[in-house]
């Protein structure tokens, strides 16, 4: 899935690719499940394989993919965020209030990006430097950020430029292309010493510190990137709906955790892969779509979703115990 065609530094990439191949092993069965759901969905909804159908499906997946990545980065550092949904909302209302104004699309996008990076970095600083539990800091942060979103736009409104909505949420697979670019950038980041440190800093911070890894910097950078992905997802949601809504992101907090957990990201830090988290978010999207086409009532959908998530976490445990 995310086996990027990006060339890692220089020649002699044999080691790089061998490592990448090894990382696939843990998520192979997940990929198979995703494939099965994809086939099932294809049967139920023949339009999936037309250009428009593919575009629409990837658009429904796109924001979830972004927040799953945002959550997975933090979980890899041994943290977690409960402010994901609030940040998505904030990104959406900032986009909807700035892009049709004097700042224009570029200026608005820049504000959305800077706010995401800034809030993320500030959260990271508080968590890392003050050694406070991430779950508490981000819970408190979610109230503050949600309040800020309501200040920017007290009720649904604002506007997005039509051309941007048509580009991102129209009949072209532009959203998918953006996602591919984001994944490539992530691969690039992971190929830097700072990016790779994320795993060591999350799994064994003391050992990493003793080895000379800038543990604090790696973790703060992770929070900043996570914030950027969240507000970016907010911008997209605003383009999708054509306007801003200060509480539109709420459901993303728990869904991002669900997607990361489905994708095999562990809560203890350093366990799991981004390709797993992406596959988890895709699986969640597919599940919702398939259940919709099978005529599940919304209540039944939630129950089924919950059971599948518990199963996904429990099955590897049982397998380990059987060994």
């Amino acid at each position: 899935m995310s086996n990027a065609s990006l060339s890692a530094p220089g020649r002699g990439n044999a080691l790089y690719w061998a490592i990448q191949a090894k990382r696939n092993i843990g998520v192979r069965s997940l990929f198979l499940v995703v494939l099965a759901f994809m086939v099932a969905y294809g049967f139920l909804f023949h339009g999936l394989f037309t250009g428009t159908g593919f575009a629409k499906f990837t658009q429904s997946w796109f924001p979830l993919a972004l927040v799953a990545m945002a959550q997975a980065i933090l979980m890899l550092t041994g943290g977690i965020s409960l402010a994901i949904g609030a940040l998505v909302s904030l990104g959406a209302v900032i986009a909807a209030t700035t892009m049709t104004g004097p700042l224009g699309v570029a200026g608005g996008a820049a504000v959305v990006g800077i706010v995401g990076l800034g809030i993320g970095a500030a959260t990271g600083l508080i968590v890392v430097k003050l050694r406070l539990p991430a779950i508490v800091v981000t819970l408190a942060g979610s109230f503050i950020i949600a309040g800020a979103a309501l200040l920017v736009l007290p009720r649904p409104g604002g506007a997005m430029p039509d051309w941007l909505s048509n580009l991102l949420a129209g009949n072209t697979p532009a959203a998918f292309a953006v996602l591919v670019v984001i994944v490539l950038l992530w691969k690039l980041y992971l190929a830097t010493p700072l990016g790779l440190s994320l795993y060591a800093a999350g799994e064994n911070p003391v050992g990493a510190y003793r080895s000379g890894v800038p543990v604090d910097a790696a973790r703060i950078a992770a929070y900043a990137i996570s914030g950027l992905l969240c507000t970016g997802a907010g911008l997209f949601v605003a383009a999708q709906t054509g306007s801003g809504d200060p509480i539109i992101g709420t459901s993303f907090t728990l869904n991002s955790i669900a997607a990361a957990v489905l994708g095999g990201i562990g809560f203890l830090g350093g366990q799991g892969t981004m390709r797993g988290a992406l596959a988890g978010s895709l699986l969640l999207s597919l599940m919702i779509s398939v259940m919709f086409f099978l005529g599940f009532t919304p209540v039944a959908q939630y129950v089924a979703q919950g059971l599948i998530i518990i199963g996904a976490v429990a099955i590897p445990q049982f397998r380990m115990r059987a060994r």
Partner: protein
Amino acid sequence: MASPAPILAARGVSKGFFGNPVLRDVSIALMPGRVHALLGENGAGKSTLINLLSGALRPDSGTIEIDGQAVSRHSPPEARRAGIAVVQQELSLTGSLSIAENVGLGDYPRRFGLVDYAALAARAKAACDLVGLHEPLATPVGELSLGRRQMVEIAKALYRKPRVLILDEPTSSLSATETRILTTLLEKLRAEGIAILYISHRLDEVMQLCQHVTVLKDGTCTADRPLEGVNAAGLVRLMVGRDPGDLFPRWDSTRTDRTAIAVAKLSAGAMQDVDLEIKAGEVVGIGGLVGQGQEDLLLGLYGAIPAKVVSATIGGQAGLPGNVPQANARGLAYVPADRKREGLHLIHPILTNLMLPAFARMPALKLRNRAAERETAMGLALQFSIKGDLGRAAQALSGGNQQKVALAKWMPHDPTVLLLNDPTRGVDVETKREIYQMLRGFAAAGKAVVLLSSDTPELVHLCDRVAVVREGRIVTMLDRGGLSEEAIVAAAMGAERERQAA
């Protein structure tokens, strides 16, 4: 010997934790081209000395010198820059990263700001070849066995081309072949002029590999000399031998003929095939180096971890207790070593802590009788001379009094077997004396006491018999007549063969 200037040295360093001195005026000098052994019993201060040398801790007094120059602000990054590499016992590896990524961690070669995987592959391979690690470099470290991970850890130290290599018990998890590779490698590094500090509990390795030895005992240096002309028994003598004073009560046999515990071929955790018979009225010691599986033996008997056995009689019933309530019902009580985490509930009142086992035995929804609880607890406090208001949180007590609470809480149920895991660790001398008296008192009252201890004199002076554990097996059972600190340490370190020959 070669050049006069040591690469790394400590001059008269002292270090204490919370007022307890751990190192007192210790000096050590690591010379280029020399393998220097650091020996000492558990708690003698070896790890603290390593942490001072590697910058992880600062000395309270004394100095650390690099190339003859005193360094004022020694820190891990500073030490790394000076070429000091430490192979710690707790591994510093990341399971989800590959061997190569672990070996290079913290010092990746870069190209355009990215990790240069080609250069990393070449350098990591060179380091891995040195230690005989031939697994593909892309293998995640999480898939390797403990011994192979240790080799990755050593490769990681070599990757940085150190001038000083400190190895803290590098061979404890290595196979014989891996140990041989390491030995050859250290010989080679020594010939290249690297200074090596080698901490090991295996005396034969030390005798074979090292040229110079520093021995620590209770935080002071008892020997700093060339290894030439010393034998294993001589080293053991340098490590032990304290004046017991009047710390211990007089020893009288109170052993009876009633069997309290009898197990055949017990396997639990790291322990394998243990045959053990303990009579009522005796104190049986469990000795050996820390972490050889002793704790698993106690927990296995107590039903706290899964255990297998061919036949067992414990507390008058056949078979092992399947869980802790069953063990308690049979009259077993366990006092854990880590009283802060396992023994007590620190933020709760002393009274609650004392009554906890009683709560566990009450019907779940029966109403509590506070007056009766208070009376029982007061009685216990009096009996164990636990000072202080019983309504205060247990964390307000000193370590010694906390330990007495952890022990006293079992007494209302009159246990017949006491399983004690290092009951005097971190306890002041006065409380130690009280606890020792209690232990002999329990035995005199017909209880069986199993005393796991890292304190050798305690085993010698209190126990009827001592089982010495090494690598998950009871290697020697010393009877009262053959009990001595030398005998226990020699058995724990596997030097008994040499002693017999000498």
